[in-house]
């Protein structure tokens, strides 16, 4: 059994909206193993983003435990939380959130700014990460000179800068066209497959979700359904339709010709 990198126990989150109290999450239990690729799905207002924010230490839960590498981050004060965010979590946003006045490589270097890494070390790692997300040669471009897909890839490189235990992506394909969407999903899948990065994405796009290993359906702040995704099959290198052997790069099964 693989070790659990993230374990959520009975997590609840409520906040007041005007005079109304909104129960965004109620008693969520979840275990994510190291190297897993998980999608959280659900209609608007089901609590997807709230869950991701709480997992990413951007928000505090009302009750429950979040064990990240066996540390209960729900109990940590802000003076400790930023270290968790810096070192354990990589966050990817729907709107990319790159700093407009920094170029691609500087944006990637940003999370390493407060670490002990030397300037040259940071530069080297950032350039390696940009190469990994397929942006070699675009290091000096500012966000406004990059396409949406490229911007999101810079954001992913930035999220991976401090080699986090878990990569959280909130609707990472939400602002991308179909082609870029597929590219990005492929990128995330290959990161998971080749680098072993643990990834949790929030999406309402079924197609995107289907490329993950595990799909969780969230409704009214509760996980109501769990489903296997295509990604798992790729990991096991076995066609889910006919059971024959497949390659990671295959988009359709070489035997039964069905789409993977």
């Amino acid at each position, binding site marked *: 059994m693989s070790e659990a990198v993230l374990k959520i126990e009975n997590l609840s989150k409520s906040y007041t909206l005007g005079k109304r109290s909104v129960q965004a999450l109620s008693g969520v239990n979840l275990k994510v193993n190291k190297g897993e690729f998980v999608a959280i799905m659900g209609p608007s207002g089901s609590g997807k983003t709230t869950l991701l924010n709480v997992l990413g230490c*951007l*928000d505090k839960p009302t009750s429950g435990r979040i064990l990240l590498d066996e540390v209960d981050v729900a109990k940590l004060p802000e003076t400790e939380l930023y270290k968790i965010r810096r070192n354990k979590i990589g966050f990817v946003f729907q709107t990319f959130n790159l700093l407009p006045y920094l170029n691609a490589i500087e944006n990637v270097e940003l999370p390493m700014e407060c670490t002990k890494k030397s300037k040259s070390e940071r530069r080297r790692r950032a350039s390696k990460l940009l190469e990994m997300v397929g942006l070699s040669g675009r290091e000096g471009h500012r966000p406004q000179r990059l396409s949406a897909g490229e911007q999101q890839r810079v954001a992913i490189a930035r999220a991976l800068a401090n080699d986090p235990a878990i990569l959280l992506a909130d609707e990472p394909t939400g602002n991308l066209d179909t082609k870029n969407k597929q590219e990005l999903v492929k990128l995330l899948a290959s990161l998971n497959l080749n680098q072993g990065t643990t990834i949790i994405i929030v999406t309402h796009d079924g197609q995107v979700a289907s490329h993950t290993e595990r799909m969780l359906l969230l409704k009214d702040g509760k996980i109501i359904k769990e489903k296997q995704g295509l990604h798992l099959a790729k990991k096991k290198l076995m066609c889910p339709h006919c059971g024959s052997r497949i390659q990671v790069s295959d988009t359709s099964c070489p035997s039964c010709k069905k789409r993977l």
Partner: protein
Amino acid sequence: MAIMISIPAGITANQASTQNLTQNLSNTITQTEASINQTLTQITCSLSSGFEGFGFNPGNFTPGQFGGGGNFNLGQFGGGGNVPGEFGGGAFSGGGTSAMNETLYSDISSIENVAAVVPSLQASEGTNQTVEMFGRSFTRLVPDYVIEGIPLNSSLVDNYPILPTNITDGRNLQGGDSGVVLLSENNSKFFDAGVGDTITILGKTFEVVGVHGSSGVSDRTTLYMNLSDAQVLTNNTGYITSLEVFASSSSVVTEVANAVSSLHPELSVVTAQQRLEQLQAMQTSYNTALQNAESTLNQTQTTAFEEIVVAVAATSLIVLFVMLYTVRERTKEIGTLKAIGFSNWTVMSQFMLEGVLLSLVAGVVGIAIASVAAPTLSSLLLPSVNPFGGSVRLGANAGASNPSAATIAINPQLMLLAFGAAALLGALGSLYPAWRASRTRPAEAMRYE
């Protein structure tokens, strides 16, 4: 920022000018005091001008007095011995001094407590001018220069203030000098002669040994020479126009003056007392002027302080609002920074730094503006120091009462100070916005568009 720099510059200029003024006033007072001390023992004796002294009144027609009157026109009318014996002029001499026979007054030196008697002969040289007055025409002398003959005797010139003290060129007259003159600066121009030159006075040549500036004891148009030279030159051998009697101490001045008066009732005896009173009045007015200057400066400083407080408050508020706006505008960026692991402290210091940098840029711009507009700004914003209320001017010192544009200069210290103030205000103004930025909860910040 420009205001913040200009005002201290203006104050500095005002302070400098007030200091200058204070310096001048205290110099004047010191001079005055010295002058007072010097002349305390001095009694000026001369024949009263006008009717009594000159025998117009037959009852007073005594030989002694008449002797003096014989050459009375010497000092006042048309130079030495123009029309000897002409009586009429004396009547119109109006407060002037007239010639007296030297030998008649030798008894003064034997009066008790008289330390010295210095006879002198004064003669004006110039051109006659006719003026209409009270329906009559009078002839009046417009002097070009005044000859003052002083006995150049070491024991007198060395111990008593009978010669000018401020020699601006060459040397002063000294005991035993003859055939030489000490010119005033005006004389020097009139004769177009300087030290070492030879000038001709009434047909006789004299060598110029020195030039004196005008002061309390000397006149601007007076040239000094040996008494005997002057007497010969003006054809007044044996005659003088006044006697300076020096009492042995200031406490006996009145007694000595009374003694002189009783011995020679025809003499007009003026003690230093009158002069003292004048000088004291002058001193009082200078003191008042000083106080005025001080109070004006205080007022200026109060105004400047108020203006600086307003400027500082305005600057801080501007920085505060700009930074609050910036923080609001960049909420999402702040959220992002926090989401990728920036600590509160890092975020706060980044925004503080931004505020400070912003203010420093403003500081540079302000200094640039101030270096051009400081004189205008400070004269617009500050009352100027003028202890004499505008119309009253203190001779050469008058220039010091208003700082001119040239005196308002921005010095490097002031610039550095302004720069420091800018940084401080930047930090102060951005403190709260930066703190707010650092407290932003990332999840909320992310929702913000």
